[in-house]
């Protein structure tokens, strides 16, 4: 089927940050930014995603930036793939230069009821629970993308000593604020959703607020720093009259 192959892949005409463009049926175009899972290609993904969002091109209905790809969805009743590609070729990207990354402070109560999987995860990793906590908090993690659930940051990369496959049986409901690990990634469940990651702690901070614009403060490219807090500190934050939002780490 060489003819079909030709139709499903369109090649770039002028220098653009992506390395290939693929049709996703008649619902979108998938831009590929190499295959290297590094920060540079991920930066380019988000740079183009922001440029597409800023430009508010009629007929573009959504963008899904991931690790090395960007899905640009369009409404085929208003736009063809060719028109969208033509527009992407001339999309101005100078204005949306990479925003300086921010680092966010995430207070976490580890273990116990707040982190029901900590003990089991530690034993599977051959570590003590307090070693898992200190290893998890020792690093600053980059947010590669947001997905799975509203505001869920896919951050990494975990030190190899903390890498575990997902739980064999996912939970049908994970409590909001759960701090979790799976594979090379760490993340936070902002809302009560199903989930298969290992829950090692809980943050009292409200990560996703439907009433706020934007509903979540961090963006891909930003960093998360997990800070262990005591039960007293956790409950003090939790008991505050207005919801506690994330704070930036000030050096």
């Amino acid at each position, binding site marked *: 089927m060489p003819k079909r192959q030709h139709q499903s892949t369109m090649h770039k005409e002028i220098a653009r940050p992506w390395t290939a463009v693929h049709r*996703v049926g008649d619902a979108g175009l998938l831009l590929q930014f190499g295959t290297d899972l590094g920060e540079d290609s991920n930066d380019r993904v988000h740079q183009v995603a922001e440029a597409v969002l800023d430009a508010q091109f009629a007929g573009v209905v959504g963008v899904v930036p991931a690790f090395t790809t960007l899905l640009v969805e369009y409404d085929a009743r208003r736009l063809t793939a060719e028109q969208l590609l033509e527009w992407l070729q001339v999309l101005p990207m100078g204005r949306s230069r990479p925003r300086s990354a921010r680092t966010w402070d995430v207070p976490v109560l580890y273990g116990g009821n707040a982190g029901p999987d900590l003990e089991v995860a530690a034993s599977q990793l051959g570590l003590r629970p307090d070693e898992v906590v200190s290893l998890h908090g020792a690093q600053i993690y980059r947010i590669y993308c947001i*997905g799975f659930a509203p505001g869920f940051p896919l951050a990494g990369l975990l030190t190899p000593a903390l890498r575990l496959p997902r739980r064999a049986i996912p939970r049908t409901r994970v409590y909001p604020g759960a701090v979790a690990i799976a594979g090379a990634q760490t993340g936070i469940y902002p809302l009560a959703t199903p989930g298969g990651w290992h829950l090692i702690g809980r943050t009292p901070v409200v990560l996703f607020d439907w009433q706020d614009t934007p509903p979540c403060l961090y963006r891909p490219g930003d960093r998360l720093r997990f800070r262990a807090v005591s039960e007293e500190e956790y409950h003090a934050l939790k008991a505050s009259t207005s919801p506690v939002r994330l704070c930036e780490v000030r050096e």
Partner: protein
Amino acid sequence: MTAVRVARPGLLTSVQDTGRWGYEHWGVMVGGAQDEWALAWANRLVGNCDDQAAVEMTAIGPELEVLEEGPLALAGAELSAVVDGHAWPSGTARFMEAGARIRFGTRRSGFRAYLAFPGGIDVPAVLGSRSTDWASEIGGLGGRPLAAGDCLRSTTHAATQTSTRWPTMRAGHVLRVMPGVRRDRFPASSYAQLLTREFTVSADSNGIGLRLTGEPIASPRGDWPSEGMAIGSIECPPSGHLLLLMKGRGSLGGYPPLAHVIRADWPVMAQLAPGDWVVFESVDAEEAQTALAEAWQFPAGEPTSKRLAMPYAGWMMDRDRYGRRLPGAGDSVWRGQCVARIASTGQVFDVVASGAGVLERVGPLGQWLGKGETMMTMKGALTNDGGFELRHG
């Protein structure tokens, strides 16, 4: 204002508009009405724009009590609605008196029906949409499906209420696809397997995705990072059992898609019920564009009915060239779709529809029919005299 109270909620009944588009980069799912075409019909019948919030009903409809009089419109699946003992067919709007009771019965065709209120249902918008997202617990009424005791109110009085004799859903068993964005990760045989086999919609399907059972597809081996997964994508996990992503899917996925159901056929996909058979037909980008334009036409006037006659004496076969079922009565078909197969003396022909419409009567299958005898009747905007073309099978 039209207002109703929910006496019984039915199987899965919720407030939905066209969906929460534009926030997937925050992980917010699109959701919304699974069948945007039936939603648009329901809205039009009470003089609304296509995208107003309406009630989406799934397989088993609710029981409603009218609190304040006003019109309501019904479109999509035929769930045997009855208003105070009188049948209320899908595709019509009715003026409801206060105290009237609306009940739904047996599911006769399709899977999802829509109940539209003048000006849409009065609930607050969250991120630009009134759609209920019960996974995130936002939108609609309290972020959850409707429950007994809930009250729904229209935002305006209606100026118009109309009916249509056109079908307000596009039921069918044939979904058109384009090759998957990651088809190069699959064995060469996988796409051909998709196009030549018949699948069944599994009972554990939902608004996130339809699970398809059938002979497993040759699946790709490997591990790739998650990436954006469009609605309509047909994901293939290592088991080889396909998952067709619906509007409630999460924006990121890890299994490579083998194919994508084209936008024109999302409403068809939304009306498939567990147990239904489904087959796939490959189209190119240009055909997809034509299909979409044709699918979103809202015809005016009366549909015409046309009888298709046997061009030769022969048998009408009940399977296509690959042994898959052929469309039957009630299925909507498009121009160019194979609708029947005839075995004549020593020759086999495929019958291809030359216009879009709905099959009314098909058959009898497997019986000898003389030249000129009725093969099927079809309803639609059929201007072409022949109504079908023949191709050597």
